[in-house]
């Protein structure tokens, strides 16, 4: 397990949130306005939230700086090590591919491939479990949803 200081990570997150606020503000300027008798138009609440998030992000950065100067780095956030991080990134990529394949290819083939690949990614090497469990689970779930619960699956 790798780790990073809590205050340091909060500072980076605060900066990231400020950048996000700038992006959201730009997009909010693009919202079409309507003629109205009130100041509360379609972009009223978004502006309130962008302003609020920006202020709170500044508070987060200031708090982190204060903590860092007063006590040094005390609390740590545990992060996945490089290998685990790669595994999770690959897993996310697999999920995106699964999402892309779900409708055009259909539930059974897409799920079978994603299930086996996912199990392999998380370290399953027993060939019977690697093949048998996904086949059984995919078919049982398909039957339960389509036949018993009348939920349509592609």
């Amino acid at each position, binding site marked *: 397990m790798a780790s990073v200081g*809590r205050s340091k*990570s*909060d500072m980076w*997150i605060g900066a990231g*949130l400020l950048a996000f606020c700038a992006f*959201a503000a730009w*997009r*909010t300027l693009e*919202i079409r306005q309507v003629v*109205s008798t*009130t*100041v*509360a138009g*379609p*972009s*009223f*609440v*978004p502006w309130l*939230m962008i302003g*609020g*998030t920006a202020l*709170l*992000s500044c*508070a*987060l950065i200031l*708090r982190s700086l204060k903590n860092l100067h007063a006590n040094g780095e005390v609390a740590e*956030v545990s*992060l*996945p090590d490089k290998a*685990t991080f790669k*595994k*999770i990134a690959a*897993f*996310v990529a697999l*999920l995106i591919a*699964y*999402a*892309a394949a*779900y*409708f055009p290819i259909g539930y059974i083939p897409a*799920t079978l491939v*994603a*299930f086996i690949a996912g*199990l392999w990614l*998380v*370290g*399953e090497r027993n060939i019977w*479990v690697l093949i048998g*469990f*996904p086949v059984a*689970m*995919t078919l049982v*779930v398909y039957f339960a*949803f389509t036949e018993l*619960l*009348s*939920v*349509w*699956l*592609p």
Partner: protein
Amino acid sequence: MESLSYLAPLFQLDVIWTIALGTLGGLIIGALPGLTATMGVALLIPLTFGMPPVMGLNMLIGIYIGGIYGGCVSSILLRTPGTPASAATVLDGYPMAQRGEAGKALGMATIASTIGGLFAAVILASLAPQLAGIALEFGAPEYFALALFGLTIIASLSGDVLKGAISGALGILIACVGADPISGITRYTFGISGFASGFAFTPALIGLFALSEVFTQIERLASNDPPISLVKNPWPSRSDMKESTNALVRGSIIGTIIGVIPGTGSGTASWISYNEARRTSKTPEKFGTGYMPGIAATESANNAVCAAALIPLLALGIPGDVVTAVLMGGLMIQGLAPGPMLFQTNPDVVVGIFGGTFMATIFMFIFGMALIPVFSKILMIPRRLLAMSIVIFCFIGSFSINLNPVDLYTMVGFGVLGWGMHKFGFSQAALCIALILGPMLESNLRRGLLQSGDNVVEFLSGPITLLFLALTVLSLGWPMIARLLARKGGVHSNIVE
């Protein structure tokens, strides 16, 4: 008499089976460390899509009640709380398991959860209609103040109030994606037609609470599980019951009161109840050494919260805790809007929920006592098989509501966001509450300002509005009060990570 006739659908065989299955499923989910009742409800909401409202909603309530109770299993057997609500149960449950009394500890937890649950269900059935009657008078200012009050839940749900507030503000901003509720103008859709009506709520919830947990499970795959204790006779003796009576009664009352207050939740209730039981006990030194009243206090309180948290949800339309926030998704996909009008338009559903809460609690008792000997086997399910099975359910659940492939990307996106938020101490629950209450807040604020000609004083001057604004301030101070109460008993809630 009319109300009693609404109970009839509850006694149909398929409804009974569904509630029983929901409760059993919740129990298993709650028993597995890392899988929470919130996740169980979020994951299984789509199952209720094709069911009649009373059947579907009671299945979700069964999962909720079973899930909160199930958390005690791994608390007692593994010293790892299955859900945050059962963290306090570790204090006396695990030492009992070490002494070879795991069965008795689980038995007491089951009995206490049942008593707490039934007590709160009675209060739910008597209090919710009264509260809904008052709420019928509400207009835009009152609903705005109510939504604001509901949003202060964020303060008590988040360990770090500043990060909770950031999550909340982001949640409201995310809820703005799609068509503006007043003018219909689209906002932040980036030209993607799938986002025209905003992010679909249920896929977002599934991502936040279920898929994010899969990522956490993948991280933990390398860690070793502790040995599991053997489970024998589950029935506590008469003297055990006598000794625990005060703790049981007090825990049920504390859990019910805390459940009604939005945002406090089962975790807070069980710690306060434990502290009170210890403070008022003649033998406080026995607490923490494997003492039955300790388990009775925590488990009666955390299960009392389940039914009590439904009171603000059903009567006012604001969730009592994070699981009821997710339960709102279940009501919404049935086309039902929680709040006072539900009592007028769908009294059959409301009465059905009251009855279903009783039924689920009774099923929880039956399954709890019957399955105690096999609990240790549930905990042996390999995590990697569990993780991948959850992924499959996440996909089916997210897709089947709107049959829209965009919802799958929404779910994956919120899953990654939820995992990152959890990692860096930002509350996923705060984001979820904001996603729910954001639209209510926005539409009523704008409608109210329009009606009052932008006069804020006139907009916020009604007595009920002022009452909710005062409650908002009080609710913001709640974390401080809870901390003081926890310190009073000298128990530190952070002993169990």
